């Protein structure tokens, strides 16, 4: 695997999967409307070769006004559909502002889908502010900082999460900001499990 990782930017040229293309089609709409997002899910490990499937891609989105959201909604619904509701007011007021995610899939195709939610916690905001630019072949995605991604997967704690954490750690261990990584392990109280899983 050849990639470069410098100054919060990763460059990776590879054969894209349909999953990659699906994510790119959706995030291009966000870019078009200048909506800031960060991908935080297991998909981050899949981009870098993790051999597992996923049904959803988790996106944290900057907080939008209803007017901003409605404009985005109208354009997203040209090619995508919202699984939860077809009413933008309900999507915004009953889901997003209540910190509940909505899901978008391409029309008539249930899986994969985008899990779309607003940032809520300080950790969410930090993730968005410190997102990593990923130049993926001819497209650009924004992903969670790798150090946090690994530590958070260890915190989540399922077998699948441990495997995701180990996969990303193995790929990026020579590129990690060790101090930042150590601080997240400490903050999330996963130093002990990190030694067990990542060694």
């Amino acid at each position, binding site marked *: 695997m050849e990639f470069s990782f410098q100054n919060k930017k990763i460059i990776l040229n*590879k054969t894209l999967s*349909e999953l990659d293309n699906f994510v790119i089609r959706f995030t291009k709409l966000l870019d078009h409307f200048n909506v800031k997002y960060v991908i935080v899910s297991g998909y981050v490990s899949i981009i870098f*070769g993790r051999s597992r499937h996923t049904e959803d891609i988790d996106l944290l989105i900057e907080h939008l006004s209803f007017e901003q959201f409605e404009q985005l909604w109208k354009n997203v619904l040209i090619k995508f559909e919202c699984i939860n509701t077809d009413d933008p007011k309900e999507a915004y007021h009953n889901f997003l502002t209540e910190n509940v995610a909505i899901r978008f899939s391409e029309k008539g*195709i*249930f899986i994969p889908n985008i899990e779309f939610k607003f940032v809520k916690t300080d950790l969410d905001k930090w993730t968005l502010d410190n997102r990593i630019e990923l130049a993926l072949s001819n497209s650009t995605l924004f992903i969670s900082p790798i150090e946090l991604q690994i530590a958070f997967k260890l915190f989540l704690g399922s077998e699948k999460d441990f*495997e995701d954490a180990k*996969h990303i750690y193995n790929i990026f261990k020579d590129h990690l900001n060790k101090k930042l990584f150590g601080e997240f392990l400490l903050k999330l109280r996963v130093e002990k499990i990190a030694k067990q899983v990542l060694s």
Partner: protein
Amino acid sequence: MNLPNIDLEELKKDREKNHAERMKFIDMYTDWLKKTPNEIWSKQHANFIDSGITIVNSRIINKKSEKI
């Protein structure tokens, strides 16, 4: 119905062994990824990822057809 005897200690050992084997597999797989050119690993990987999406959606479409 007669249920089988379950040796929980044995099952726990098997679970731990399975976990260790999975972790070892990830080490082997990431070693291979790191030394394999992008065009080779990513083509295999894309085939694997795309096969999962196709299978799931064809099942959903088939279920919808059965209902109709």
